[in-house]
């Protein structure tokens, strides 16, 4: 009995240690964002709300956040819809190319986007899409599509086919069965996919930086640079404050996912091969 207790205490100790290490770099963001004398290290802040006020102003920060919401939200929607349609045949039919297709898709998730940015830029120029937020949105959607397909297909595998068969017997077409039987059961999974795409797109700096010209259209990720540039003591505070504002939507969405599904479940379905 005591052995078990010792083991438990040990496990808790190790966990506490790990948690502390993981928390340490984050702490800087919190203290610095409200510190009038912000520097590079964690210190007791000389409290001020000024950093947050300045980064939330529409011109300097608010607009970029809104642009980010539009771009990432749109991309998430497009990806979710396309991935759901694409996953249906992959999950339900016996396709000869299924395995190679899935492995290609999985491999594509690891492609470094930076590598294709110059060709993508040329493509955008050729079709007059530079500076178009819609086009950037679609590109971001396409870029996260491989991972989304992979996840969606696995979620769909989790929905028993018997339910659909009942619908087919009633004379419903496969697409109708998808809409009325499978989708309602998959909604949580689809939400996970959409949120993942949103998070990926939200964090992407390089794509909008290259493809959008007008600073008024740049999303939050690019705007972060503003605070790197202006050196001096003040900007660490603004940088930290902006980082927090920039992070909040992502953390919020993550909480939604894990609350709704239990953090673990959301990924089990996603990565089972």
């Amino acid at each position: 009995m005591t052995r078990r207790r010792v083991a438990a205490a040990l496990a808790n100790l190790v966990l506490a240690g790990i948690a502390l290490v993981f928390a340490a770099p984050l702490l800087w963001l919190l203290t610095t964002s409200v510190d009038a004398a912000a520097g590079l290290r964690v210190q007791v802040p000389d409290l001020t709300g000024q950093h947050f006020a300045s980064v939330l102003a529409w011109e300097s920060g608010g607009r970029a956040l809104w642009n980010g919401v539009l771009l990432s939200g749109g991309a998430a929607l497009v990806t979710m819809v396309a991935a759901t349609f694409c996953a249906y045949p992959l999950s339900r039919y016996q396709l000869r190319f299924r395995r190679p297709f899935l492995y290609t898709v999985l491999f594509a998730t690891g492609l470094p986007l930076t590598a294709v940015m110059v060709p993508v830029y040329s493509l955008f120029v050729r079709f007059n899409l530079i500076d178009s937020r819609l086009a950037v949105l679609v590109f971001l959607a396409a870029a996260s599509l491989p991972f989304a397909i992979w996840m969606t297909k696995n979620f769909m595998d989790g929905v028993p086919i018997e339910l659909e068969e009942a619908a087919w017997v009633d004379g419903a077409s496969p697409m109708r069965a998808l809409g009325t039987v499978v989708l309602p059961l998959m909604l949580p999974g689809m939400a996970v996919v959409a949120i993942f795409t949103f998070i990926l797109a939200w964090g992407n700096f390089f794509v909008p930086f290259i493809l959008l010209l007008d600073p008024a259209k740049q999303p939050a990720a690019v705007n972060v640079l503003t605070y790197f540039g202006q050196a001096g003591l003040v900007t660490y505070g603004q940088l930290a404050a902006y980082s927090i504002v920039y992070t909040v939507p992502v953390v919020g969405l993550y909480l939604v996912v894990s609350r709704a599904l239990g953090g673990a479940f959301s990924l089990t379905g996603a990565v089972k091969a």
Partner: protein
Amino acid sequence: MRRRRPGVFAWLPPMVPTFLLLGLFFIGPILWAAYTAFTNAALSGPAARDPEFVGWENFRRALHDPNLANAVWLTVLFTFGSAVIGQNCLGMLLAVLMQRRNQVIRAIVGMLVVAAWVLPEIVAAFALYAFLSGDGTLNAVLTTLGMEGQNWLFTAPMLAIILGNVWRGTAFSMLIYQAALSDVDVELLEAAQVDGAGPLRRFWHVVLPIVRRTVMTNLMLITLQTIGVFTLIYVLTSGGPGTASQTLPLLMYDRAFEFGEIAYGTAIAFVLLGVGALFSAIYARALRAEV
């Protein structure tokens, strides 16, 4: 359980949007990039006006480029250290330790680990920079403990970026392993315990065989994510000092955008893809052997 071999009209239409999106915005640019790698395209200078087809020249050059050999080695080191060893093992350790801990501990630890992961990459990178830099928190802590601080990003750049990436990416593995472990039958474990197997043996002989497929899939995913890591390293060390932490994505960016040698940068991108493909092939083989 699959229905039947369907006709083309059954499977094709739903996949059309995906094919369009991927074909236009993904495969198209990749093919274009493949072509570019065989030219001398540049951002400026005469080659920007009329890029010429140069055959295998860029790859020949890459073969003899000491920076590339260095970058391949560092990429493998980075991937192995931070993903295969770091994220994977730490993720598993966390998942195992958090099993059967109380709700509060799970929530707090989980939250902190996941926080590093959901942060936008550039923010995570800067938080790490502030933590590790000469004037940073880590040195402040070390100094109060009576130890000598140092500029970690300079003295141990590879260690810094590897630990940085472990910090940032462990959550993914942890979440996956938590899920996988919850599928392990408790009765099996208890039976093993009755047989006198200690915790390590139980893990090795009972748990690991069950979750092995998940481990492989996870390894493949995190490996592919890790070889492409750019922003984190760019903010922390910019690949420096010198080329001491210049992994392939950094080298590619350096050549393509700092030197303006688009074509050579793209050729390096294909080397990067090659490294990814190699890792994938290994995992895929291991997975197939399982089936």
